C-alpha cells in the first residue's frame, strides 16, 4: 500500500491561493484545526471556504484568507456565533453563500456522486434562494411535476478532515458519536487530506473500535498527517473534549485589537508543536487564576 504520510508543511504546499477548500467537522467539533493553523502560517489566500462552520471559518476570516464562505451556519456550539466571522460579514469583507444545512449536505453528495445537482424541498420559499440568485429550481419529469430546489454540486479543489486514528495508507477511524459529513467532503474534492490524532498500524484500527468507526476508506485519501491535538480547541471525543476555557479566551481576544494581536503572537504565529505547548501553558494559567480566585 502506498505510504501517504505527509507533514503539515507538505500539506499546505499542496494548496494554492484562490482554491475552494472544504473543511470537515461540524461547528466547534472535530475540526482539522492543525491544518487550519498551517494555512494561517502560509501565503495561501483568496480562499473559498466550504464548511459546517466553526472557529475554522473564524480564524481564516481573521487572517484575511477568505474571499467567500459557503456555509449553513458558523457557530462555536457553546457560544452561539464566531466573532471573527461576524466581523467579516458585518464589514462586507467576504462573499457569503449561506444555504440550508441539508442543502449543503446534498451539495457535497452531488459532488461526490459526480452529478450536477440533487433535488430537495429545502430552500423553497426561503431567502436562501433570493440571497443566492445563482440557485435554480428543477421540475420533476414525472407526473407529480413538483418544483424543487436543484442544489448544485459543491466541488472542492481540496478538502481536509480530522479523525481519531488513521493508518499510513489513509484509512481513517472516527471514534466519536458522529462522523458528520467528512466522507462527503473528501468525496467532493480533488485533493483529499486526513489529519489524525495518531497514525497507527492498520491492524490497530479495527482492534480499536467497531467496524462502523472505520468510516474513511483510503479510496478517499491522498495524504494523511499525524497531528496530536490537531482538533484543539474544538472537541475530538473520546480523545478530548472542547477546550472551553481556551475557546472563551479566543472569543474574548477577538473583541479587542490589542488582545487579538497578543493572542495571535502567542498562539498563531508559532508552529504546531509550540501552539500545543502554549495552549497547555494557557490552561495551567487559567487553572492557577481560578484556584487563586477560589482561595481568595
Amino acid at each position, binding site marked *: 500500500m502506498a505510504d501517504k504520510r505527509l507533514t503539515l508543511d507538505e500539506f499546505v504546499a499542496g494548496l494554492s491561493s484562490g482554491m475552494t477548500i472544504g473543511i470537515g467537522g461540524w461547528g466547534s467539533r472535530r475540526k482539522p484545526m492543525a491544518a487550519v493553523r498551517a494555512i494561517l502560517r502560509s501565503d495561501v489566500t483568496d480562499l473559498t471556504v466550504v464548511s459546517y*462552520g466553526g472557529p475554522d471559518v473564524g480564524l481564516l476570516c481573521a487572517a484575511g484568507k477568505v474571499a467567500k464562505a459557503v456555509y449553513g451556519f458558523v457557530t462555536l456550539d457553546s457560544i452561539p456565533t464566531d466573532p471573527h466571522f461576524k466581523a467579516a*460579514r458585518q464589514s462586507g469583507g467576504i462573499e457569503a453563500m*449561506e444555504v440550508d*444545512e441539508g442543502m449543503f449536505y446534498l451539495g457535497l453528495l452531488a459532488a461526490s456522486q459526480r452529478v450536477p445537482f440533487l433535488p430537495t*424541498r429545502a430552500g423553497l*420559499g*426561503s431567502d436562501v434562494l433570493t440571497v443566492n440568485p445563482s440557485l435554480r429550481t428543477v421540475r420533476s419529469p414525472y407526473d407529480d411535476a413538483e418544483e424543487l430546489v436543484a442544489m448544485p454540486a459543491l466541488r472542492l479543489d481540496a478538502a481536509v478532515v480530522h479523525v481519531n486514528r488513521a493508518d499510513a495508507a489513509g484509512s481513517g477511524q472516527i471514534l466519536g458519536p458522529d462522523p458528520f459529513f467528512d466522507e462527503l467532503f473528501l468525496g467532493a474534492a480533488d485533493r483529499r487530506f486526513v489529519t489524525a490524532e495518531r497514525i497507527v498500524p492498520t491492524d490497530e484500527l479495527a482492534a480499536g473500535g467497531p467496524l462502523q468507526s472505520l468510516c474513511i476508506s483510503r479510496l478517499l485519501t491522498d495524504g494523511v498527517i499525524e497531528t496530536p491535538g490537531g482538533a484543539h480547541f474544538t472537541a475530538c471525543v473520546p480523545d478530548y473534549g472542547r477546550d472551553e476555557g481556551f475557546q472563551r479566551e479566543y472569543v474574548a481576544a477577538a473583541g479587542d485589537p490589542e488582545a487579538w494581536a497578543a493572542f495571535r503572537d502567542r498562539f498563531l504565529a508559532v508552529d504546531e508543536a509550540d501552539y500545543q505547548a502554549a495552549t497547555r501553558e494557557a490552561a495551567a494559567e487559567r487553572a492557577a487564576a481560578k484556584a487563586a480566585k477560589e482561595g481568595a
Partner: protein
Amino acid sequence: MSESTPTGVTRAEYCAIACAEVFRGDGEVMASAFGTAPALGARLARLTFAPDLVLTDGDAALVDGAPPLGAPPASLVLESHMPYRRVFDVVWSGRRNLIMMASQIDRTGNQNISAIGPWARPRAQLVGVRGAPGNTVNHSTSYWVPNHSTRSFVEQVDVVSGVGYARAAAAGPSATKFHEIRFVVSNLGVFDFATPDHTMQLVSVHPGVTVDEVVAATGFALVVPDDVSDTRDPTPEELDLLRTVLDPRGVRDREVRA
C-alpha cells in the same frame, strides 16, 4: 378552571406547559426542542400525554424516557444512533416535530436566525439559516421567543430562514405540501396561524400578562380574537415533574423571569 388552581406557578413554568402543548397528539415522531422551555416541554409531553415521542440526547443519539435537564451522558439510556446525516433523513421524511428559536418572527410566520440588516453587509450576522428552510417545508415547526418585543415580533423579517405561510404559498405546492407552523410560544403568550389568511393570532396569554401588553410588544397588527384565554395551568403532576424531576435546579427561571 380546576377546583385546585395551583398557586405560585412561575412564568417559565407556563412557558414550559405551552411548549409541551406543541407536542399534543404527536405519535412516534422525533421531538427536537431548542431553548430551556421547549426542552422541558418536550420532556413533559413525553412523560404525560405524548408517550410515543422520541427524544434526542442533543448529540448523536435517541434516548429512552425523558432525562432531566443536564443529565450526565452516562445516565442516559440510548435507543438509536442519530448522527446528523441521519437527522436529515428524519427531517425529509416528516417524522419530526420541532421547536426552534427565532431572533425575528413576523405576522405570516417567517423566522429569521440569519442576519439583521442588508444582506451584503448586515448590521448583525447571526448564526445562519441552519436547517430552518428545510425544516419548515418538511415537518411541523413551532417557535420559542423568550424575549417578546417589537424587535423580535416584526412586520417582516430581514432574512426569511424558516418559511411562513405567505412565502410557502408563493413558492407553490412543493413548499406547502408538508408545511405547518403550529404555534409560537413567547414569554408573554401563545400564538397560532389558524386565521383565514394564516396571519398570527393570539391564542392565550400567560397568567399575569394582559392582552394590551402583548399587543404593545408586537410590531405588527396581531389578530386578537374576542375570547383570548389564559394559558392553561399545569396539572399537579406536571408541576411536580417540572420542579422535582426535570429541572430541580430551576434553570427555567433563568431563561424567563417573573
